[in-house]
């Protein structure tokens, strides 16, 4: 789960990482009070979870209360790169000397934590990585010994900042946040050095590992009690436990298992079609689950044809077949569908489909060709 900038900054403050003076507002009526607290000039920042907020006009400097009110008015209720703006963070304007990039995450390929840093902050790290990969400082941390002083020392010397004792506290803070909150990314971009030589986190990006929900139930529940701009995918995932990703094609895809579902999408593309989504019903799905999955696609106006590809391992084909039949009963058969069903209880499943006049395939390639053809004909 992604945290909003202001949520991340509250956490930073708790871990002793300096942040600018700030107030979150959800209505322009709260602006005068906030400006009184942070002073002028101030920065108003739309709180959204998408990237590229600055370029999209989500960050503005204001020099008066009226200007602040105007900005907040126009932000709240608007949408930024598709994400609704519900809150705005108003902060003091910081006197910036230099901007750095600093984050902690996991480097899966060596199974270690990694500190990523750059003397260029405020820019997307992927851009820096693409432009000048050698300018990114990468320091690995073995989870068996954790963050040690020498890691921070290396970082300081590589960033050429040995005089900044604060950096110790910041890196220690990020590391503690990562471990305490089960974050898989903790990022400060930019981390600024002010003209007075202080280090301040101007932005925050924290992503929490959903698998660790059980360890932070209270914290997660508190976060979820806030209205969050969840994507449709996230809402579906939370409601039904599916992995669901929307795409821009017209052929709806349902598979069991992430690899197989991706392979199914690829097969459709391979034969000239265009997938409308990724929807993995997971292992051992029962009829209810299949029905729910199918309902999502039946309700999606962009979906012109549906391809269900199930290889039954733990999943039983008869359960899948029953789920399909039930979903169709509920919705009527408004959309053409291609079903490919093999594996556990394959015979029973096919029989059920046959009884209800639903065509099924044994070969995934033939099924894919068929659904592409159907979608093309519209």
């Amino acid at each position: 789960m992604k945290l909003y900038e202001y949520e991340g900054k509250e956490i930073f403050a708790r871990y002793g990482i300096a942040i600018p003076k700030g107030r979150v507002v959800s209505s322009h009526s709260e602006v005068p009070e906030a400006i009184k607290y942070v002073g002028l000039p101030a920065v108003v920042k739309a709180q959204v979870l998408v990237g590229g907020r600055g370029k999209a006009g989500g960050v503005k400097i204001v020099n008066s209360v009226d200007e602040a009110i105007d900005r907040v008015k126009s932000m709240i209720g608007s949408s930024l790169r598709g994400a609704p703006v519900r809150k705005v963070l108003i902060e003091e304007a910081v006197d910036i000397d230099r901007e750095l990039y600093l984050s902690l995450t996991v480097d899966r390929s060596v199974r270690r934590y990694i500190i990523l840093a750059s003397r260029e902050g405020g820019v997307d790290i992927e851009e820096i990585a693409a432009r000048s990969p050698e300018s990114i400082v990468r320091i690995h941390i073995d989870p068996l010994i954790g963050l040690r002083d020498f890691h921070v020392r290396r970082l300081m010397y590589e960033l050429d900042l040995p005089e900044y004792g604060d950096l110790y506290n910041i890196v220690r803070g990020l590391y503690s946040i990562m471990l305490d909150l089960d974050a898989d990314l903790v990022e400060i971009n930019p981390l600024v050095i002010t003209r007075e030589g202080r280090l301040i986190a101007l932005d925050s990006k924290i992503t929490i590992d959903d698998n660790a929900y059980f360890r932070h139930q209270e914290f997660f529940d508190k976060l979820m009690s806030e209205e969050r701009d969840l994507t449709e995918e996230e809402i579906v995932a939370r409601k039904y436990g599916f992995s669901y990703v929307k795409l821009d094609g017209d052929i709806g895809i349902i598979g069991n298992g992430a690899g197989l579902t991706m392979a199914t999408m690829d097969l459709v593309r391979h034969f000239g079609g265009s997938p409308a989504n990724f929807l993995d019903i997971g292992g051992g799905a029962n009829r209810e689950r299949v029905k729910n999955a199918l309902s999502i696609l039946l309700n999606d106006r962009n979906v012109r044809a549906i391809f269900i590809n199930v290889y039954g391992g733990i999943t039983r084909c008869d359960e899948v077949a029953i789920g399909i039949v039930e979903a169709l009963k509920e919705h009527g058969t408004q959309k053409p569908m291609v079903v490919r069903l093999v594996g556990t209880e394959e015979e029973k499943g096919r029989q059920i489909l046959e009884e209800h006049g639903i065509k099924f395939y044994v070969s995934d390639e033939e099924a894919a060709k068929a659904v592409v053809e159907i979608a093309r004909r519209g």
Partner: protein
Amino acid sequence: MTIIVNKETTVMVQGITGREGRFHTERMIEYGTRIVAGVTPGKGGQSVAGVPVYNTVDQAVRRHPDIDTSIIFVPARFAVDAFYEAVDAGVRNIVVITEGIPLHDEIKMINYARGKGVVVVGPNCPGVIAPPIRVKVGIQPARSFRPGHIGIVSRSGTLTYEISDYLSRSGYGQSTVVGIGGDPITGLDFIDVVKMFFDDPDTKGIVVIGEIGGDAEERLARYIRDVGLKKPIIAYIAGKTAPPGKRMGHAGAIITMGMGTAESKISALRSSGIEVALTPMEVASLTKKVFG
């Protein structure tokens, strides 16, 4: 010969009294796996499918000192403890079926176990199956597999069954099939398993089933460039149509930092002399092309 498991493999099931543990213990025994003990705290003294259940791993291994492999079905929040309990007891291979283990736990578990020389398959994986000796330490449907000489290593479950099935039908049985798991952190990576297959005289060719995200496939390609293609490898990469920045089911299947696209993987593999199939079925036809 086979890899990871062999004829003497002697298995303990952790979480044997749960629904999944019980079901798959039966299936594994049916297939031919030698399971001698199960562990569920508080259920010591019971038995599941004729297998005695113990309260602690320590009791199980003291009673059955021949246990060398454990398979873990314990729910995510207790799986970490079960895992360390198995390592502590000296088990040499651990198959972690459990999905949903927090990332920070995984990273520590795997580093610790590798330091001890323990082979970890998973987490979030279907396990290992060796059709020639009928040993299955996992949850795979037996019907997809036939004895033979193709080694398979994969990051996914059902897609592996699918491809094995195609291979089996085309006359290419398998020596050992290893599902390394779909999480960002896994105990074994492609290089580890391909090395084992290179060393296994009964494996004539290798099928690698990858997917987008991470750089496991690119690293394999680099490794092959360094050591040479000691046996023919055929690869398939799922996720060619996946957009960047989105998680495709597996926590691992996400394209970030411009890395881990299907294109980068496919071109890296091809430039190392590895054949890459474009559809699951094509894996079987490429195998036929290679082995005639």
